[in-house]
């Protein structure tokens, strides 16, 4: 009996079962974390399984969810964007400081997106064409943006955000906030772009092996430039959603935005050049993170505990993934 015959005789049901197990084991850690949390939730508090509570969690997660989508775009091509905090600070300050109150409302809506796009373009040029380090160049851009905001505000908190803009977060369709619908829409669009457009294949090829991609004719620099530009555009949308979620502006949106975005991207199965989570992975990761923090709050765990849990989860997810895929 030859080996091929032995293989041929393997029952299809056993093969399917093996494939299913392999598929489940190949899922990004975010899915496991979310499944565990959902399983444990009823034991912790009845509130945690209330559908309305989930709508609130989704609403609170929307800005981070879109920022994660942006971060995952650049991480797919082995780059990084540390300018998220800068774009958020800039957009929130200009929307809440009254600078735009004499302009039509669409200017306030477009401002964060234009800022994000401009930052994305600058990052793209610096990283892809000038070949500057992505860590340093995007960090510098963020420092400049935050510095400009702090200088203009002289360290004082700005005013309140336009009340009409808050409809983006507070308005809803059957309980689902408009901001969540924007998040879902953007996620679907990016997913479709990856599935049907050539740029998706370019991203995957560059992330997998940049040198091989370039040798086979894929425009390496242009692909990385596009990823940064798109990431900037999406970060701008995330900043707009964040502005709509705030009643009062702030000049310190915090390093947490970037930290959480990076953590959720990794948990969602997208790391430097590794794209096993697709677009759904980071989405699930954001929900899992928000749910986890909500649960920790129920347990009375404060900021230090949350930081330790967050760090532990990132490390564990990365180690499990590293062991399975060879490199995270």
């Amino acid at each position, binding site marked *: 009996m030859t080996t091929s015959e032995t293989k041929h005789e393997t029952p299809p049901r056993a093969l399917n079962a093996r494939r299913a197990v392999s598929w489940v084991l190949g899922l990004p850690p975010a899915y496991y974390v979310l499944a565990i949390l959902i399983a444990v939730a009823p034991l912790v508090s009845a509130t945690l399984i209330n559908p309305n509570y989930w709508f609130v969690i989704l609403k609170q997660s929307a800005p981070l969810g879109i920022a994660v989508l942006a971060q995952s775009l650049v991480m797919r091509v082995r780059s990084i964007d540390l300018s998220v905090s800068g774009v958020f600070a800039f957009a929130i300050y200009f929307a809440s400081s009254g600078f735009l109150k004499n302009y039509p409302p669409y200017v306030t809506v477009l401002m964060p997106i234009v800022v994000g796009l401009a930052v994305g373009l600058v990052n793209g040029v610096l990283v892809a064409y000038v070949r500057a380090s992505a860590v340093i160049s995007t*960090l510098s851009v963020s420092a400049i943006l*935050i510095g400009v905001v702090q200088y203009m505000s002289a360290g004082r908190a700005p005013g309140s955000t336009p009340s009409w803009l808050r409809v983006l977060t507070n308005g809803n369709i059957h309980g689902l906030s408009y901001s969540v619908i924007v998040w879902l829409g953007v996620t679907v669009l990016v997913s479709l772009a990856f599935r049907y457009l050539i740029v998706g294949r370019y991203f995957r090829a560059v992330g997998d092996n940049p040198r091989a991609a370039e040798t086979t004719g894929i425009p390496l620099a242009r692909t990385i430039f596009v990823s940064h530009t798109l990431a900037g555009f999406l970060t701008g949308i995330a900043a707009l959603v964040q502005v709509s979620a705030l009643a009062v502006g702030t000049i310190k949106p915090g390093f947490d935005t970037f930290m959480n975005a990076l953590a959720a991207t990794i948990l969602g199965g997208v790391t430097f050049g590794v794209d096993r989570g697709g677009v759904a992975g980071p989405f699930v990761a954001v929900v899992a993170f928000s749910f986890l923090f909500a649960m920790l709050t129920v347990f009375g765990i404060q900021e230090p505990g949350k*930081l330790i849990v967050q760090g532990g989860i990132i490390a564990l997810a990365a180690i499990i993934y590293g062991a399975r895929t060879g490199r995270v």
Partner: protein
Amino acid sequence: MNIVTNFLKVPYRAGAIVLSIGTLLVILIAAVITLPGFLAPENLSNLLAQSTVLVISALGQTFVILTGGLDVSVGSIISVTTTIMTLDLPEVVRVFLCIAVAVAFGLANGYGVARLNVHPIIMTLATMGIGQGLALIILPIPGGRVPDWLSASVAGSVGPVPNSLFWLIAASLAAAWLLYRRPFGLYLFASGGNDFNARMNGVPVERTVIKAYVLSALFACAAGMFLAGRLASGDPKGGATFGIESVTAAALGGVHLAGGIGSILGTVVGAAILGIVNNVMNLANVSAFLQSVVKGLLLLALVVSQRRKTIGL
């Protein structure tokens, strides 16, 4: 003497150090000409004290960057060290505890990166969160009291020479000795330059990477002790900015983030540029809020001038 000579050498693998030194000289000359108070002993002493934490942490960061990695947990280790030094324990125990915690963080980072194949940014980001949480648990708000000898060793002076200069020189010489006088230094350049070739030539790459992270954590621990001595108290978020600033200082000194290229002198120069720019802007009454913009532009200008072969991180 050899250590000092090697410290001053500018080999090809030191990167764009000449550009960094040139930048430092231009800033120094401009400061001396335009700001009369710049060379005042009080200002120089203040400048040294302000820059020492950054120099020490950046020196440790250099070992990691030379391997092609990045250690963003440096800031958390500094914070944890300052909080441990305020614990109600015998002073020797506090010091040993600081070292033990730093070694544990370094080993976790190194093992995760070298053996478990986790990307350096991801691994050290995770330990950064854990370290920050730990610091906040030990000391929720700034305060406490550090041993008197620590405050005295930082704030005092020997004649006209401030003690901070001794900390700075000791850390620089220790780093130079490790990098230029030990096989470890050679292994570090080899591992960062091309880890495959290094492995083929018998370099223990994984062990070298783990050692680099442990050293980075130990230098961060020393920086934390200096900061605790300077503040005479603990601060759970006192080191937060140094994780990124230490990378910035190294990059300003011509250390390539891709690994394999850099120098101790370059890192010291990079940290000095950051420290002097801050000091000059303070003396010139430039808004503290504009300093972030100026530093960002300076960093961008220097990084743009160092075109690399690779695209990405």
